[in-house]
């Protein structure tokens, strides 16, 4: 089988402390996997590691993207290969307007796009996420509410059209309508050529999205994997009970 992403015995350290302690995971093209797990289990560490954040050191194992190791690639090289990360807490960038930021983002993937076409692309993505165009004149994520930041992340995903996306707690801080809009956009972007990892604490996001697999993360390892029903069981019984039943 062809995998878009393969993690092979992956070990990761942050400031000398091992957080991820040997993960093996394969994600085929076109699949969406959910990763669930208690706080501090290493879920966000995995997402930063996949995009090559300099603070996160791979001490053992490998990350293969479309069959090739990406460990020696910089963050931007990984992004341009088709990897996308939506952060749990999107970074604020004072002084850089959202319009200027998006123009630079699009340029880094598609080169110089005529201004009219650029505006059309951006407007269309904003409409899909039901975001007001006023945000284009505001600084990136500066003063955005939690929900606005998350919508803005999906706007970027729509504009970039990545092959592979890691969405870290994309559902946190959202009201019911925002959750639905974001989830519908994610579902709409599902395709046979695009895969995703959804990191989440709640089953509610999965009501809108066809997830192929659910993995339970604990202490830096995948403790158990199953189908979408696992998320429902988790919400009803909690991690301890599920894992003790399995073991």
């Amino acid at each position, binding site marked *: 089988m062809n995998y878009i992403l393969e993690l092979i015995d992956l070990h990761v350290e942050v400031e000398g402390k091992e957080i991820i302690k040997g993960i093996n995971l394969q994600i085929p093209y076109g699949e969406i996997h959910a990763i669930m797990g208690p706080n501090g289990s290493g879920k966000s560490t995995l997402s930063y590691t996949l995009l090559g954040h300099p603070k996160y050191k791979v001490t053992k194992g490998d990350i293969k993207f479309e069959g090739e190791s990406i460990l020696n690639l910089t963050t931007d090289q990984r992004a341009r290969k088709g990897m996308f990360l939506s952060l749990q807490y999107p*970074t604020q960038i004072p*002084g850089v307007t959202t319009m200027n930021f998006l123009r*630079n983002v699009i340029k880094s993937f598609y080169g110089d796009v005529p201004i009219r076409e650029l505006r059309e692309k951006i407007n269309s993505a904003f409409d899909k996420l039901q975001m007001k165009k006023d945000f284009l004149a505001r600084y990136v994520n500066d003063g955005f509410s939690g929900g606005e930041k998350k919508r803005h992340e999906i706007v970027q995903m729509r504009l970039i059209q990545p092959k592979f996306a890691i969405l870290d707690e994309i559902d946190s801080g959202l009201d019911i309508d925002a959750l639905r809009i974001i989830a519908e956009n994610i579902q709409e972007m599902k395709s046979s050529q695009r895969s995703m990892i959804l990191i989440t604490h709640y089953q509610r996001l999965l009501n809108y999205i066809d997830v192929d697999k659910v993995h339970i993360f604990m202490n830096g390892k995948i403790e158990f994997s199953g189908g979408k029903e696992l998320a429902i069981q988790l919400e009803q019984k909690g991690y301890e009970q599920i894992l003790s039943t399995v073991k």
Partner: protein
Amino acid sequence: MQTTIQKEQKDRFLNYIENTNHPFKNLQIQALERFNKTSLPPIYHESWRKINLNLIPFNTLKLVDAELQTSITSQYRITDPSIIEKFLMLNIDPLKAESYHFEVDYFTLLNVVLLQNIHLIQVPSNTKEQIRIIHKVISGDGFFPFVVVIAKEGSELEIQEQIYGLEEQALWNSTIYILAEKNSRVRFVSIRNHSDYEFHFHKVRIIQHRDSYVHAAIFHTGGILGKGFLQARLLEENIEFRGIGFFFGEKGHFHNMEMDVQHLSNYETSSLLYKTIVKDRAHSVFIGKLETPYKIKGVNSHQLNHNLILSKKAKAESMPWLIVRSEDVSCEHGATAGDLDEEAIFYLQARGLTEKEAKKLLMIGFIYDLIEETHLSEEDKESYLEKLSNQL
């Protein structure tokens, strides 16, 4: 050490004055007399202690060959010698003119002694005007422009000054006086691009009367060594002054910016914001000076200085200097120094920008609010940011 002017130099300056065609020779000679008794500002002078003035090659300036072309767009250019004399006198002996509390120093005197271009613009009452002043070097290595802009009562004025430096060793010493009369509104922006070889001393002196508003912005890049002054004298009640500035230095550039506000009456407001980006071995010094005399009330004043220091050998110093002698005054000052936000760099790289592109975007973001605050046209703003972005 060269702290005084040598005899040979004095003769050279006198010879220069005799050969010029200005109608202000008498004032130039007065300035020279005082200049001959004046030394370079001493190292113990708080304003000047960070600058090594002995590096400036005063003795080898090619004064006779120097040619600075200044173009000004305004229909209100006038040549009334009595007005010009009054302002020249401020550079020589303010007590003989009117006391606006400006200091006379080596450089204000030198500016008169070696005057090259003198310009006076007087915008009539209740008139709107946009002025563009461009100083362009034609030849030589010593440039001494002197400009006076008067905004008469109720007028609205936008001034844009541009200084184009020379890719050779040169000394700039300019003065611009801006007089904002009662109820006038003035917006001033100066864009100074100096080469790696230029020494630069620029003074912007602002005099404000009742109910006036002045916004002054100075954007400076480059220069081997120099000091800029932005001095505002708020003479009467209900005046507002806003001063902003930016310095980008690389290689061995040194720039000392002194923003200096004197609140001389009640119910006045001032604010200063100065930012720097320094890399390589560049060195920035910011002096934020605020003075309020006795028995002044209702004054609000604050100043901020933010510095981005991009290499271990680059340096940015912040020196607030508050002289507050009255009680009903609210003053604040703050300063920050740091590197670019690593998380923001990661975020931008995760969106496909290279590390270099990400850093450039963040640096432009760092000064974006300053540029936005000015009255530059959208085209000029974009052009300035693009040029700067290529230098960063």
